């Protein structure tokens, strides 16, 4: 199976072809927003980091911005900085340029304020978008798809229909030589031993246990036991009996493929197949992490209806809930509720998801893209703001 994508100089393949306008620091988000509002064909990455943080977190900001700039869905990049941020601009610019992309950089304090920077960047972005628009899509095997998986605003149907169906789609993609990335470490809790059984070797299994332990310890440091009290009283009333069952409902997205490796947040996998990435479950941070990891498509299962999308990676929304299809029709791309009604099956729904991902990867727009509901983004931090 092939999709129509954009060839990048470092061998990766994009499903979109934006000029990325990236904030180096929280303080220039307004400038970036103005540029993107004016110039069609640009996509932004704004966030709340890059200054007054521990060096550990500044390191994560540097690494994540670099990785986002390298995402194959960006043709080229304009980095906007203020001039006094902690972000290491040389590292970010050189890192993105190493992928063969054009990177331009404007400094607000040197250019002469937000107005002049915005004007200069708009003129620059116009020429860069023109350059990008000359590139045509070419056929590539689906082994070039890097799929991010996510579920959110879940209900009883999530663990029964869309998550297992994503598992089928992920297995099919992996069998075809592609890559799929499972995040949401908080969702592993209680079933991490089961997930570890899917690891390709003992090192990967240990890596899974360590991610969960790290997540628990961070919550414990502020006095929260995230394992205790699970499943909640509400979960039990809804029919979930054990913590294993609750976590398996989310992990079902991973299907049955062996887990090849465990990665830190936002790190691009160097292996094909199914991998696990450290990330929380909250949408802005995980969608950003998946984009930084090089995902060119993301599939998002929902039960009650989650609207979030990302600026330059299409997010395909699927649900097994008839109610969500009816009440959240402006956000839901795929209706799998026929599995509940009896007219469809999980294996068939999984195949349809993969076909839809191929269409989306070839340029069909998601509802989040059409609506412009694509600004769910931020970088996952470890330490305090100081």
């Amino acid at each position: 199976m092939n999709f129509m994508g954009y060839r990048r100089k470092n061998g990766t393949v994009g499903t979109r072809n934006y000029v990325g306008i990236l904030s180096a620091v929280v303080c220039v988000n307004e400038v970036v927003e103005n540029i993107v509002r004016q110039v069609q064909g640009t996509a932004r990455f704004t966030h709340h980091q890059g200054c007054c943080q521990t060096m550990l977190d500044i390191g994560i900001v540097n690494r994540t911005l670099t990785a986002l700039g390298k995402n194959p869905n960006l043709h080229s990049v304009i980095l906007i900085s203020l001039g006094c941020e902690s972000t290491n601009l040389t590292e970010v610019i050189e890192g993105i340029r190493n992928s063969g992309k054009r990177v331009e950089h404007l400094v607000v304090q040197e250019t002469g304020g937000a107005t002049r920077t915005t004007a200069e960047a708009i003129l620059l972005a116009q020429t860069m978008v023109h350059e990008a628009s000359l590139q045509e899509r070419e056929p590539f095997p689906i082994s070039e798809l890097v799929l991010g998986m996510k579920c959110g605003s879940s209900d009883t149907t999530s663990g029964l229909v869309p998550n297992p169906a994503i598992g089928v789609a992920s297995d099919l993609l992996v069998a075809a030589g592609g890559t799929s990335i499972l995040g949401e470490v908080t969702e592993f809790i209680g079933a991490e031993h089961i997930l570890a059984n899917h690891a390709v070797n003992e090192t990967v299994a240990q890596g899974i246990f360590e991610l969960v332990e790290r997540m628990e310890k961070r919550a414990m440091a502020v006095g929260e036991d995230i394992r205790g009290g699970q499943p909640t009283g509400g979960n039990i009333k809804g029919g979930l009996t054990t913590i294993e069952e609750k976590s398996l409902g989310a992990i079902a997205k991973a299907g049955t493929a062996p887990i090849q490796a465990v990665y830190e947040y936002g790190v691009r996998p160097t292996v094909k197949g199914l991998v696990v990435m450290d990330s929380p479950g909250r949408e802005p941070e995980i969608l950003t992490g998946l984009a930084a990891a090089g995902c060119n498509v993301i599939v998002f299962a929902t039960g009650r209806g989650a609207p979030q999308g990302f600026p330059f990676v299409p997010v395909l929304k699927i649900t097994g809930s008839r109610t969500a299809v009816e009440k959240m029709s402006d956000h839901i791309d795929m209706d799998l509720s026929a599995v509940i009604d009896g007219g469809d099956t999980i294996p068939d729904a999984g195949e349809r998801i993969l076909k839809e991902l191929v269409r989306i990867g070839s340029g069909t727009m998601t509802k989040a893209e059409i609506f412009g509901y694509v600004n769910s983004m931020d970088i996952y931090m470890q330490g305090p703001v100081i």
Partner: protein
Amino acid sequence: MAIDAIALHTTDNVATAVQDLKVGQEATVRLNHDVCHIILQEDIPYGHKFTLKPIQLGEKIFKYGEIIGRATTDIGVGYHAHIQNIESLRGRGDLKTKEDES
């Protein structure tokens, strides 16, 4: 064809109701491309599980083809499978009693 419940893997010994189901009803259970029928011995609320096979005390409960807990009593076919007859192998967080890791 309308269905009443979904099983997710061939090794599963429980299925999940996708409607509110009544005692005495013959429930149609979907497993991938196949269906089977189970006579229910109890009411099963939407989202709750019932047994597909006879289960003995201590036997592992399978959903998604994975172990979600074990039986705390013998359970016949078509019975409500929940906290009254299944316990976690990881402890019950909501009860904060024993930590059972066996």
